[in-house]
C-alpha cells in the first residue's frame, strides 16, 4: 500500500530498496523478541471475549446503521479487528521509533550510508503496517474459530486492516516527529483511548445526538470500523469508498509530515 502511494511522492523523496533494508533490520531485532508482539495482540482479544461474548449474552441482537440484525459479538468483532490493526500500528510506529530517533540514534547511522530519509519513513511505516497485519490476521483467525466471520470475506478484511495499519502507522510516526520527551507519550494514550471508545466499535454512532455524530466521524478509526464491518458482513455499498478515502488521505498526510519533519531533524 505505502509502496504504491509512495509513487506519487516527488522523486528525491521516493523510496528505493532502502525501505526494504530497514525492514530487514527490524526483522533481525524481532527475531529475538517476538514474544513482545503477542502482548499488544491480547488486548482486543480480551475485549472480544469479555465484551463481545460476555456482554453480548446480556445485550442480545443489535441492528447496524445499514439495518442488518446480528448478534452483539458479530457486531463488535470487526470494530475490534480495526482496533487491533490500529494498536499494532501505533505500538510499532511510536515508542520504538522515538527510541531509535533520539536514544539509539539508529537513523543517524543509517544516514551515514546511501540510505535516505524517505527510505526510513517508508520502511518504518511498512514495517508497522506489517505488525498491524499480523495482529489483524491473528484476530481474524480467532473470529473464524468462534464463528463470527466466514473465510472469503476475512481475506478481504485483511486488505482493509492493512489500510487501517497504514493510516495509523503514518499518523503515529508523524506524531513522534513532534515529540521531545518520554512524557509526550501520555498524549498518545489520550488520543487512542477515546478513538477506541467512540468510533462505533461497541455501538453504532446513531446512539449519539445528531449534532455530535459529525464530530465522531472525524475519527479515522470510525472509518476503519465501518469498512471492516462491511467486509466481514459482506454488505458493500458506495460509502465504503468514502471510508477508504479518508483512511488513505490521513495516511498520506502522515507520510508527508513524517518525511518532511524527519528530514529536518536528521539532516540539519
Amino acid at each position, binding site marked *: 500500500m505505502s509502496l504504491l502511494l509512495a509513487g506519487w511522492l516527488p522523486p528525491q523523496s521516493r523510496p528505493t530498496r532502502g525501505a526494504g533494508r530497514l525492514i530487514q533490520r527490524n526483522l533481525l531485532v524481532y527475531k529475538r523478541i517476538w514474544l513482545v508482539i503477542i502482548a499488544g495482540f491480547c488486548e482486543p482479544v480480551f475485549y472480544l471475549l469479555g465484551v463481545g461474548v460476555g456482554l453480548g449474552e446480556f445485550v442480545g441482537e443489535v441492528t447496524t446503521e445499514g439495518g442488518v440484525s446480528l448478534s452483539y459479538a458479530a457486531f463488535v468483532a470487526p470494530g475490534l479487528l480495526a482496533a487491533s490493526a490500529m494498536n499494532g500500528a501505533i505500538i510499532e510506529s511510536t515508542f520504538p521509533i522515538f527510541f531509535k530517533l533520539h536514544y539509539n540514534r539508529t537513523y543517524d547511522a543509517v544516514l551515514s550510508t*546511501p540510505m535516505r530519509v524517505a527510505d526510513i519513513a517508508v520502511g518504518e511505516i511498512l514495517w508497522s503496517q506489517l505488525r498491524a497485519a499480523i495482529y489483524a490476521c491473528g484476530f481474524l483467525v480467532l473470529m473464524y474459530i468462534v464463528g463470527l466471520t466466514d473465510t472469503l470475506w476475512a481475506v478481504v478484511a485483511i486488505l482493509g486492516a492493512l489500510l487501517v495499519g497504514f493510516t495509523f502507522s503514518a499518523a503515529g510516526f508523524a506524531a513522534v516527529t513532534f515529540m521531545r520527551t518520554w512524557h509526550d507519550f501520555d498524549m498518545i494514550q489520550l488520543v487512542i483511548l477515546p478513538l477506541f471508545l467512540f468510533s462505533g466499535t461497541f455501538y453504532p454512532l446513531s446512539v449519539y445526538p445528531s449534532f455530535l455524530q459529525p464530530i465522531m466521524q472525524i475519527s479515522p478509526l470510525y472509518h476503519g470500523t465501518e469498512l471492516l464491518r462491511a467486509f466481514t458482513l459482506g454488505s458493500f455499498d458506495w460509502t465504503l469508498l468514502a471510508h477508504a478515502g479518508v483512511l488513505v488521505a490521513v495516511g498520506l498526510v502522515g507520510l508527508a509530515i513524517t518525511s518532511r519533519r524527519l528530514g529536518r531533524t536528521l539532516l540539519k
Partner: protein
Amino acid sequence: MVESLVVGRGLSKKFGDFTAVDNIDFDIHPGEAFGFLGPNGAGKSSTMRMIGAVSPPTSGRLSVLGMDPSTEGIKIRGRLGVVPQEDNLDRELSVYENLLTHGRYFHMKRAEIDVRIVDLLEFVQLTERLDDRVDLLSGGMKRRLIIARGLINQPELVILDEPTTGLDPQARHVVWDRLYQLKRDGVTLIITTHYMDEAEQLCDRLVVMDRGRIVAEGSPRELIERYSTRDVLEMRFAADQHRHAMPIIEEVAERTEDLPDRLMIYTHNADEVSAELARRGVHPVSTLIRRSTLEDVFLRLTGRQLIE
C-alpha cells in the same frame, strides 16, 4: 599539484543566529591524515557533518570526492566511511548484525558482507565477540566496532569525529594503531580531536579551529615552529621569589606566561636560559624543561579560558 579529495571555500554553517562554521577554506589531499583541531564548540563536528553530506552548508562551496554534497549526497555517502563522535551502534543487535545491517544499507551482497566482517573483526580485534550484544562491550570495544562499521564499504575517505574521546590509554593506543594501518593502506583520514597528542601522532596536516574559524594551518612541526618556541621551561617559585624573578626572566625569554601555579618560559634554547637565570640569582623551587608541543600552540591560539 595533487587533485584535492575534499575542498572547502568560504564554507559556513549557521543554526538560526548562531554561526557554527564561519567562512572556512581547506584542501584535503588523497592519502593524507588531515586534522581539525579545536576546543569544544569550535565547529569541528558541524564541518564533519557537512563533509559527510548529512548537513547542507549555509553558504560557500564544498566538494567531496569531486561531487557536490547537496546534489550528490547519496553517491558521496556510498564512498565514505563515517566514525561518529557519539556511540550510535544499534543496541538492539549483536556485533555481527550491526555490521551486517550496515553493509546492507550500502546495498552490498550478503556473501560479500560476510567476508568483509571476518576481515574487519580481525582488524579491530573483536573476532571472539561476533555474537555478543553490543551492550556487553566495553567503551574501547564499542569504538573499535564503530570503526569497523565505518569501513564495511571499503571507503577511500574516512571521517573520524573524536575517535578516542573517553577511552583509556590502552584503548586509545589500539585505535591509533588501527588508524596508522589504514593510513599505510592509502586511506585518506579526516580526524577531529581536542587531544593534542592525538593530532601530533596521527595528522600529516591540520587546521586549528576556534569559534567557527580556522586560526592556523600546517603540519604539527610547522605549527610549533610558527606559533611556539623550541623549548619550554616550567618554573615554580616560592611566593616572595616570584616578583623578584619576573623582570629578569622577561629579559631572557622569547615569551612568558604567568599561570597561577607556575611560570611558563618559551625559548629556543632552554639550557642557555636556565644557566643564565641561575647566574643572575633566579632560583625557582622546581624547573621542568621540555620541548614545545602542539598543546602550547593550541593554548596560545585558542586561549586558556573555557569557551562555553
